[in-house]
């Protein structure tokens, strides 16, 4: 029982760190004009691994809802599930179109792909869509975000600052 609780606690902590990293990295990568093409591309490529970890951490929820989707589940879970799939599709389109117009990662790896004028437009469109979906995703998980921040960031910080110094026993 206690072991299970510790496991869940650790998982929530890891989830929080991973999610904050994804959020910040995506926002930085979204502006290649300022960060530079190289940072934009390498950061976005590294996000693939982090996104896989994010999906792995929610694996039980995904499989449970996939099995029950046709049956009886509440509407918020259903919306959440569909939204997550849309996020996954938009993310995949961003990655693919990004690789197709890559100026840094693929040339570094010695690869070159045929150019097509449609990929740049698709890359921008899917990125803007992803930002909106990310907002909706955050909104639907807002209570979890607030709880996790309270428990693992604000409360430890408050405890650290409010900790009374030990009594001075020396006379």
């Amino acid at each position, binding site marked *: 029982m206690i072991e299970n609780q510790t496991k869940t606690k650790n998982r929530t902590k890891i989830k929080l760190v991973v999610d904050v990293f994804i959020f910040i990295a995506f*926002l930085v990568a979204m502006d290649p004009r300022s960060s530079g093409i190289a940072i934009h591309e390498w950061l976005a490529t590294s996000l693939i691994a982090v996104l896989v970890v994010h999906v792995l951490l929610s694996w039980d929820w995904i499989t449970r809802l996939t099995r029950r989707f046709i049956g009886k589940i509440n509407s918020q879970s259903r919306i959440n599930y569909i939204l997550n799939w849309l996020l996954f599709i938009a993310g995949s389109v961003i990655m693919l179109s990004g690789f197709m117009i890559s100026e840094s990662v693929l040339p570094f790896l010695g690869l070159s792909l045929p*150019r097509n004028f449609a990929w740049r437009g698709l890359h921008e469109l899917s990125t803007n869509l992803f930002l909106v979906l990310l907002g909706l995703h955050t909104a639907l998980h807002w209570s979890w975000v607030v709880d996790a921040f309270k428990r693992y960031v604000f409360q430890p910080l408050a405890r650290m600052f409010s900790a009374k110094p030990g009594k001075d026993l020396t006379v």
Partner: protein
Amino acid sequence: MRTLGRIFIILAAFAIVMGITYVTVNASTASLSRTAPAFERNRDNGPRFEGERRESRGAGGAVRLLFGFIKNVGIVAVIVALITIPKSLQKRKAAPVLNNKE
């Protein structure tokens, strides 16, 4: 081993979505390239000129990066506020009044 299998499933799903997108885009642009003028087709292959590169460095770049970051956070914040505030207001309305003395 179980985690490895899950990673494989996730990457396979990525590959399927990417494959469908690739085929769709190529099919749609192949039919378009037959009708579009040559300069439109080669728009992405054209020569690059000095100053065209879409990135900036130095202090200006940092300020722009910060501005872009704030703008994107703002968009997400607005969406979150638009959904969570009405939701919490609705919850507050639906909650029973506990301190009613009458």
